[in-house]
């Protein structure tokens, strides 16, 4: 001990103190979630998983409500969850005095059912300005089993865009039934009972073929015109072009 200079001894005390405090802080003071990635992940994951839910999920609704869930699965709204229209209901599950919303106003249904060109064809859409103005939707349509209040007579009730397009075309004089045959069930269950479409180019040829007796229609030679294409691959039948 005598041989070690005083200055070195003092310095080494400082070094040891720093080393001890580093080891203490790094391994004993800092929580594992700060030093170990796995522990940090586990902690943050559980923290995220423990957050409260707002939407209860429609499975739990059927525990108390019997009539509506039983009815909705039969109709066109079968894919809808209760909370799609009634809003988040976890608060209602925990405290029955808190009621979820029941949208009865005319503004709500057009969120999905207003006509919009970007919407997929076949999705039922209306023009809220023209469709029974000011009447609340639920006056005619039961939201848990939505269907038209009476069986539609005109094709345009559902196929409005086609009807409007045809109205400004050369085919304005043709009835829908000239080209399509719709079984009666199509009015009630349109997706399972489809209307027919013309099978081949000979059908258009009954008016547009050169040997047709229809004098008003433009004539083409079916044998040479269009090759192997069907007529509607080039000409849209609801809006055929000028020449």
């Amino acid at each position: 001990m005598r041989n070690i200079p005083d200055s070195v001894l003092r310095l080494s005390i400082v070094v040891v103190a720093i080393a001890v405090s580093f080891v203490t802080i790094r391994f004993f003071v800092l929580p594992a979630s700060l030093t170990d990635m796995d522990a940090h992940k586990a902690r943050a994951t559980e923290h995220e998983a423990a957050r409260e839910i707002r939407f209860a999920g429609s499975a739990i609704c059927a525990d108390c409500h019997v009539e509506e869930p039983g009815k909705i699965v039969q109709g066109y709204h079968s894919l809808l969850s209760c909370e799609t229209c009634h809003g988040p209901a976890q608060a209602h599950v925990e405290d029955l005095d808190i009621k979820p919303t029941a949208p009865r106003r005319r503004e709500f249904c057009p969120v999905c059912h207003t006509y919009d060109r970007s919407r997929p064809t076949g999705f039922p859409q209306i023009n809220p300005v023209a469709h029974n103005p000011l009447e609340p939707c639920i006056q005619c349509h039961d939201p848990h089993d939505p269907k038209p209040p009476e069986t539609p007579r005109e094709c345009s009730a559902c196929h409005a865009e086609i009807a409007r397009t045809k109205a400004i075309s050369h085919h304005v004089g043709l009835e829908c039934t000239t080209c399509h045959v719709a079984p009666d069930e199509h009015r009630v269950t349109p997706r399972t009972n489809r209307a027919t479409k013309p099978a081949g180019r000979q059908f258009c040829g009954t008016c547009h073929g050169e040997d047709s007796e229809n004098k008003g229609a433009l004539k083409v030679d079916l044998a040479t015109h269009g090759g192997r294409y069907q007529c509607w691959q080039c000409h849209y039948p609801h809006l055929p072009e000028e020449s």
Partner: protein
Amino acid sequence: MLRRKLLRKLVSLIPLAGTFQAISKLGTAQGIGPDSEHTLPTYGMGIQIDKCIGCARCLEACKTENNVPPEPIFVRTWVERYVIKTNNEVDVTLLGAEADAAGEVAPRNALRSFFVPKLCNQCANPPCVQVCPVEATFITDDGVVLVDGDRCLGCGYCIQACPYGARYMHPVTRTADKCTFCYHRIRKGLLPACVEVCPTQARVFGDLDSKASPLNRLKRMKKIHVLKPSLNTEPKVIYADLDGEVR
């Protein structure tokens, strides 16, 4: 000569340091690491473009469920309206934003138009996780990319790095926020809020590994695509009937 001796001694210490590190790793792995015998699901989402009606129920439900601020620029999930015009121009508007509400929607010279719901793709190879300087964002063992709000500095690197624009800076917490597949819901066996409220099943959710999963049928029956496949991010959000113009 003395310097050479010292260097030689130091070099001989290098493998020793490696051994120390390996031993310390071994200790932690035994203590806290994930249970390898328990097989976890790999959560994924399927989006059917042909079924989306652009009703925006999903993004409203998401905002309610996850306390996302009401302004349309803060979103965990959003819906884009694509309009491909006759001159092949492509218009993309954000559903719910002013430009979309203003009326110039799907004009008459549109060739085709459709909605594209978007959200975090929960990449298996996520650029956002790579760039985080403090490891605040990470992939869980069931494949969801999460952000630890307590650790996030709010530097915004991840927001820049995400090629899908799926992250935003939360104006209240000043930390990065993003879709978690509603991690707090799916761990309870519930569906993510957007999937729960979707009226047309345009969004389906499930385990990508499971055979009894709606995603399995989707992958079998439809033509499937992911967004920006060239970036090799390996998204877990898959799209059916996706148009080639969608970026």
